[in-house]
């Protein structure tokens, strides 16, 4: 499980209301979430997410359990989210919808290329190499099958 993208740098304690506001949740149309992603944080962000690696501060995804936050980022084309720590429900949701999340503290330079390899356990950014703690085998399998829906389809 590897990938790369341009860095989009965000601050600490970004809550899921910031990722996708409560007023946009009542739909099954994922494109609604993509067009309003991060709207209350910075409306310009939505246009920068395709092919991006989000490099956020600590406690990314805190607050509401809304899975639409993880789905919105995945559908917007985010390759991975890297943060020193995540709120636990967001972390589970991201794995479950097939969005790689990586616990790692890296220095973020906006627009710089960030590469990662979850199986080998590293992140590279701005010429620096960072080892990361590997995900559990089960979480890796869920991610590589594209999320928990596919995982369970394959296990039945």
């Amino acid at each position, binding site marked *: 499980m590897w990938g790369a993208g341009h860095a989009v740098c965000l601050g600490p*304690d970004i809550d899921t209301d910031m990722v996708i506001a409560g007023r946009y949740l009542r739909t099954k149309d994922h494109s609604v979430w993509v067009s309003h992603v991060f709207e*209350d944080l910075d409306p310009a962000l939505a246009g920068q997410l395709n092919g991006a690696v989000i490099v956020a501060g*600590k406690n990314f995804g805190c*607050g509401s359990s809304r899975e639409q936050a993880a789905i919105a980022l995945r559908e917007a084309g985010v390759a991975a989210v890297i943060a020193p720590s995540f709120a636990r429900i967001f972390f*589970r949701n991201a794995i479950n919808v097939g969005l790689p999340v990586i616990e790692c503290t890296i220095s973020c330079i906006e627009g710089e290329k960030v590469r990662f390899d979850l199986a080998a356990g590293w992140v590279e950014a701005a010429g620096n190499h960072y080892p990361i703690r590997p995900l559990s085998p089960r979480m890796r399998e869920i991610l590589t099958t594209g999320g*928990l*829906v596919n995982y369970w389809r394959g296990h039945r």
Partner: protein
Amino acid sequence: MSTLSERILGASAGEYVERKVDRAYVHDGTGVLTLEMWKQMGAELLSDLPQLYVLFDHIVPANNSTTATLQHELREFACGSFLHFSDIGGGICHQLMSEGVVLPGEVVVGADSHSCTLGAFGAFATGVGATDMAAIWLTGETWFRVPDSIGIHLSGSLRGGAEAKDLALSYVSRLTMDGGTYCALEFIGDGVKTLPMDDRLTLCNLSVETGAKTGMFYADDVTVRYLAAAGQKVRPQVPEPCTYSRELEFDLAEIVPLVAVSPRVDKVKPVQDLAGLSLDQVFIGTCTNGRYSDIARFAKIVKGKKVAVRTIVVPASRAVLAEAIRTGVLGDLVGAGCTIGSPGCGPCLGAHMGVLGEGEVCLSTANRNFKNRMGVGGEIYLSSVATAAASALAGEITEPEVD
């Protein structure tokens, strides 16, 4: 020698366990996505292992036809599949689960972050997202990493104008918004016995605001009596010596009325530091402070007077509303100029029933004051019920009077 989480999950902190879920619930918000994911998993049968609940509370009654259509589909499914179902006006999912449903020692999972509220009964209760819940519908089980536990030692008893909410804001400010991440909070010590169930539910409710997986009380005589009144016979849980990853101490007698300042729940100040801040709205309700004791306490303060700002009171459940009618509390609220909402989450999540306008300030008894949460450009301050009542009468943030 284990923490309550270790005892219930049957493994040591740090271990991963696959665990049968006793009760699993969704609301109208997360249930729609859960149903979609469950269908995508290729499932036709629901697991018969857990008790499954669909409890409408987030946008009830529906605010527009899109919401109504989504709710219709989930309602049809819940009734057709014989899930436990509560329709509009029934109340907040966590509140309904607290009215004699969740029992000590159970594993309870809700598709809502505030499912941690139910740890107040000595259950292991936590929130998950929709896809995790869909897998529970499918298999009856889920995985957990057994959490480290933070011991929160309580001594003494609350006094003056201070409430459990003020204690909750105190521990959130000490731990900060991520100080409890991946951990369980265990509330222990001599002070616990002074706290009724409603206070314990408030304290556990805020645990997720520190990033914690859950907040927990050991079931004791207070728990046993509360559940007995709801027709459930249970035994107390006896704490064992155990190892906490971190310990905090609070003397309840030293807790003072507090406010969490927009837009962070851990930015907590004494009410007196904010006294005089002008308000546009006061909101009493939610899974934090919408129980009967909260609403009665609010009514006692405003009875016979008039609120100076628009004030919205939303009972946490139909049982709460019925009790408020029976005791006359509802009449006192209406007489004081309050607006009463249908039981549920009310405006907490900014979807309906009291959304804020640009630049407006709301004092709320809820648990979250994130930027724009109750309306774009609106600011939310969080407080206890007594502070909200004194402030509603004054039209500005005001310290509660001491009884």
